[in-house]
């Protein structure tokens, strides 16, 4: 009996609260958004701001303690030291190569899973594409190290043609990163191809267009935003990666490795180097936005 009364009272309070929230949409919105906005502003944008500001500090050359004196030396060094320029260009080049390779490989795969394969197999194929994402990143990269090592699988498979594997180095890095990020490219293209209305293809055929023409004039324009969306993943993930290159990259270094090697002794320089991928990716996103791809993310 007593419990009934309390639950009834509790229910009353909840109802009153719900009622007052209903009457005040602004309060409702504030309560809903405060936590995520704080997260975004303080933790995410805040740390980016700290990164940027600390790039203008310097260090004591002997004790390597950060000295909070404003100076643009780090950025000056970043743009005048040949090795930094070279590494930045190399990193952007790797990210672009991985993106292009992913797009080229992902398109036929996605076309098969979305339009050619029998409908009841399609979900299974998508699951199969996603399976590698369940395995640990390190396991996959070390597997590639074994494949590409001297006398490894790559050498063995190419031996009958009188060739040898690429060994460790830049090509191995691009190859491994392409493998790692491929699912992120296949999925958006798969979705776009799946949603492509069949009657458009029929209309194109009825009007006398051959397969190639249909592909260029109908399929490609409609799928391109998805390719761009997938490229946001492959590009940014490749640009930030520094572990794959340590394992299969031989002596190659990318931006991430430079950040890592500076982080203990010269934090401001590491921060300056760290702003480079941020700037590159912001520019990339702005360029991508023009294609309308961000709407289909």
């Amino acid at each position, binding site marked *: 009996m007593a419990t009934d009364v309390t639950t009834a009272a509790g229910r009353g309070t909840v109802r009153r609260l719900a009622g007052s929230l209903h009457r005040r949409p602004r309060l409702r919105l504030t309560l809903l958004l405060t936590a995520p906005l704080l997260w975004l502003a303080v933790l995410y944008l805040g740390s980016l701001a700290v990164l940027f500001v600390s790039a203008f500090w*310097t*260090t*004591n*050359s*002997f*004790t*390597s*303690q950060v000295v909070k*004196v404003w*100076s*643009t*030396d780090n*950025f*000056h060094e*970043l*743009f*005048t*030291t040949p*090795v930094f320029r*070279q*590494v930045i260009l190399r990193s952007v080049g790797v990210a672009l190569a991985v993106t292009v390779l992913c797009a080229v490989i992902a398109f036929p795969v996605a076309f098969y899973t979305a339009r050619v394969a029998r409908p009841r197999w399609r979900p299974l194929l998508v699951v199969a594409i996603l399976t590698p994402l369940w395995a640990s990143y390190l396991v996959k990269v070390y597997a590639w*190290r*074994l494949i590409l*090592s*001297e*006398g*490894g699988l790559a050498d063995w498979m190419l031996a009958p043609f009188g060739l040898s594997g690429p*060994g*460790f180095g830049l090509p191995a890095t691009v190859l491994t990163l392409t493998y790692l990020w491929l699912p992120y490219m296949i999925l958006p293209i798969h979705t776009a191809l799946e949603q492509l209305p069949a009657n458009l293809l029929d209309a194109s055929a009825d009007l006398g267009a051959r397969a190639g023409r249909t592909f260029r004039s109908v399929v490609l324009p409609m799928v391109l935003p998805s390719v761009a969306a997938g490229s946001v993943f492959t590009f940014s993930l490749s640009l930030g990666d520094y572990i794959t290159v340590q*394992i299969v*990259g*031989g*002596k190659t*270094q990318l931006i991430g490795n*430079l950040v890592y*090697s*500076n982080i*203990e*002794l*010269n934090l401001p320089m590491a921060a300056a180097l760290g702003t480079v991928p941020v*700037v590159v990716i*912001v*520019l990339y996103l*702005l*360029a991508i*936005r*023009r294609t309308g791809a961000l709407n289909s993310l």
Partner: protein
Amino acid sequence: MRPTRTLRTAACAAALLLAAACDSSGSGGSSATGLNPPDLKAPTKLGKTEGQVNLVAWAGYVEDGSNDPKVNWVGDFEKQTGCQVHSKVAASSDEMVKLMKTGQYDAVSASGDASLRLIASGDAAPVNTALVPNYKDIFTGLKNGAWNSVKGQMYGIPHGRGANLLMYNTEKVKPAPTSWSAVFDDAVKYKGHVTAYDSPIYIADAALYLKATKPELKIKDPYALDQKQFDAAVALLKQQNKNVGEYWSDYLKEVSAFKSGDSVVGTTWQVIANLAASEGAKVKAVVPKEGSTGWSDTWMVYSKAKHPNCAYKWLDWIVSPKVNAQVAEYFGEAPANSKACAETSDKNFCTVYHAADENYWKRIAFWNTPIEQCLDGRKDVKCVPYAKWVQAWTEIKG
């Protein structure tokens, strides 16, 4: 609308970068103080233990059985002294220095490329070796080293040592190399299969080679290089880079590279050579005729330690014969205590690691921190400080 905004943002970003690039103020003069350590006093007697001690150590130096239940030398220490051990593993010398500066730790197992920095900045206190009974059994070659003492005052207790050896694949590298030229001047024979240690301190290896092969450079100490000597070492390493397959910092990576044949010649540690050989790689490791670089770790006490008595107890414990033998065998290095050799589980251990062979260690130049004041005593030139070594290392790798 959109393109304009994109363009404008890009232009702003470019302008920002330009501004940064254009208005560079001259780099501020460095304020290295050299080795003039603050006047700190070592304790004259020990008091009551504080019940706990906080340590910064290399992986494998402070094992309490949590990694491997059979590997535990912390448990007995806690039982005997009542000092609860809290340890923090550091991945690099630079991280060690940084952690010690937080003031939360009492002692650290610093390598030579960190110890001088800690001494000079006043973070490491002089150690009264009379309060560490096991100190008397430490090999004399480890006492009063350039990397652990200043003007005859010890700043820590030596823990162990190891040499950077030249490892080669006995099937592919013939004749067997006896000189570091195998990885420098003759490296082109093994193009793409040469390996080297991935750290700025490796520049000293090149300097050591130049010391023997280019006497006109007058290199006395590979850690005290003036600009001309330094440039020569860097040039040699840039030459070497063309033949390098990969650099290693993680030792399992080197083991796998020698097993598969991706690397056939390069620097190594004794423990890596043993591991690779036990896994079937056809390798041998030697100290070449020019000698070699190496490391020697020292347990140092923080100058404002909150638990100095427990820290001294730990210093004594870690170099006690039995524990020192355990650590040395687990980590793969020569023990510091001369009596430890009788306590190793593998009776051959000290022979393999040359623990008591002082003539062997005379040929090893132990890691030290390069500073502006030349460590070899030259007063007329400035030497290249470690921060510049780090930059040069990035450039060498390209």
